[in-house]
């Protein structure tokens, strides 16, 4: 197994101007300081040492290779990146249009929509299919549309509803 750590003690004990470690070795902050103080270079086979990605162990290496982890409840690959948008607020002409225009800007396609108006207030639920990886920008853009005097928008990933309500 490659060397796991290089400590300040190891640096103090070293002779010569450089220490050779494995790429996966974790050099402690104290060791880095000691090396700088004593003018020692910490190197790997491929040049200077850089902090490696964390070694999460043999189980973690296997995890992504196992066929799609565990089955999703009611698996539907088309919905990999879908969002449920809910909005509530004071009703006015064009509110649905404003929201759907914003959805279109983000290349979202509305699969389902329901809207009700009760005593001047509307509430609206939309299921939106999004292009791969578009969720985060979409969520920010839509939630920023709302303001306290007009209406509020909430965007949630569709998976949470699937996990909660489907076996």
């Amino acid at each position, binding site marked *: 197994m490659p060397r796991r750590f290089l400590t300040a003690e190891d640096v103090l004990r070293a002779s010569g101007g450089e220490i050779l470690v494995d790429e996966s070795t974790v050099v*402690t902050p104290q060791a880095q300081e000691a090396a700088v103080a004593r003018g020692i270079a910490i190197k790997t086979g491929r040049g200077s040492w850089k902090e490696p990605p964390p070694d999460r*162990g043999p189980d973690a290496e296997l995890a992504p290779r196992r066929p799609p982890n565990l089955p999703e409840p009611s698996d539907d690959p088309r919905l990999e990146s879908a969002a449920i948008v809910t909005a509530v607020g004071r009703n006015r002409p064009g509110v649905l249009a404003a929201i759907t225009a914003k959805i279109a800007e983000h290349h979202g396609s509305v699969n389902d929509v329901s809207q009700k108006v009760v005593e001047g207030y509307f509430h609206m639920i939309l299921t939106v299919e999004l292009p791969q990886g578009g969720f985060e920008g979409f969520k920010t853009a839509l939630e920023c549309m709302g303001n306290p005097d007009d209406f509020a928008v909430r965007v*949630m990933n569709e998976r949470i509803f699937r996990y909660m309500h489907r076996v």
Partner: protein
Amino acid sequence: MSFTDREILETIRMVELETLDVRTTTLAISLLDCADPDLESACEKVYAKVVHHGKNLVRVANSIAADYGVPIVNKRIAVTPIAWIGAASGAEDLSPFARALDAAADEIGIDFIGGYSAYVDKGFTRADRALVDSIPQALEGTKHVCSSIVVASTKAGINMDAVARFSAVVKETARRTAKDGGLGCAKLVCFANAVSDNPFVAGAHSGVGEAETVLNVGVSGPGVVRSALARLGPEADLLAVAETVKRMAFKISRVGELVGREAARRLGTTFGIVDVSLAPTPAEGDSVAEILELIGVDKTGAPGTTAALALLTDAVKKGGAMASSSVGGLSGAFIPVSEDMGMIRAVEAGALSLAKLEAMTAVCSVGLDMVAVPGDTGEDVIAGIIADEMAIGMVNHKTTAVRIIPVPGKKAGEKVEWGGLLGTAIVQDPGAFGCSVFHRRAGRIPAPLQSYRN
């Protein structure tokens, strides 16, 4: 796939109004490769490894919370019991490890790190002893470190030497943190049959048989169960109550499963377990006691409470087991007295005594949790309370724990405020009698017979 409006609004109501959240995402990290004959180097490795593995935890948890719209309240780290890491150093005082853990927790921005721990259910190694002796110093000098000691198990019995030592440590820790109402003891717990994948502090650690790094999740949601029972009303029979709790537990646990899988994937580690415990907080409505009262006892602690709690714990487990194949940890219902407004009200009203609380722990998921007693309570009394609780765990093959705070300068009936998640407690009366001879005998209570179970 489409959902009905009712389904969508139910989820949103749970998050917005019923305080549904993921209570904790806990990254368990093995520190076994950090052992070193030189204490300073060992601490250096501990700090480096925790930061190296944990530095993305908060960012990942926050990004998941934003994507799914469910708050992830706490991000925590659990590590290998420090007694095992410190053994190679031969040090008499292991508190430098606590300081290294504390500094690492500060660096990565988490509130608690668990694992200043030892397993002494059968006996002490030199390092175990050094660790237990250094607990008061470790907890006094750190903000984030939590300590847990395993003093009993069904296989080994109860190590009464360890219980005696532990009660002395509790008293000393309370004394050293007296200006904060003995707050150090809130980060100190002893266990019978500890679970090695517990994501909840103060007992979180990465025990025997755990992988290099694992992401465990603890869900919550007493508020969700409470509201569902309120809607069910008082006319429904107990099967309907159990069914309602089970359905809600399923939904809550599914959220935990989703968040756990996703967090593990984003961190590049393995997903460990979902702990499907109902964990209350001092927030209004987020109370296990109020659930018991909705099931039908006038006040928590009244006759019927233990049976209602047994129903609740079992239904939570059944719903959780259907929701996830990776249920683990403590999984059940927590009854931390100071952290649950309903429990505090029950103590104030005189409905919930220490004795009733102990009976309840025989059917809940953990044990006597966040119980305040007078600061002058004798060591023998604390040891006796712990031994009783450990006996319940040992005989019933279950996890039990004691987190008890002898609040310096306070008498029974007085109030103590710890603030934040730890809440408020009414100091409870442990009774007028002690167990000094029992305490002095020391030794070990042998393991119970495993068959002829009645």
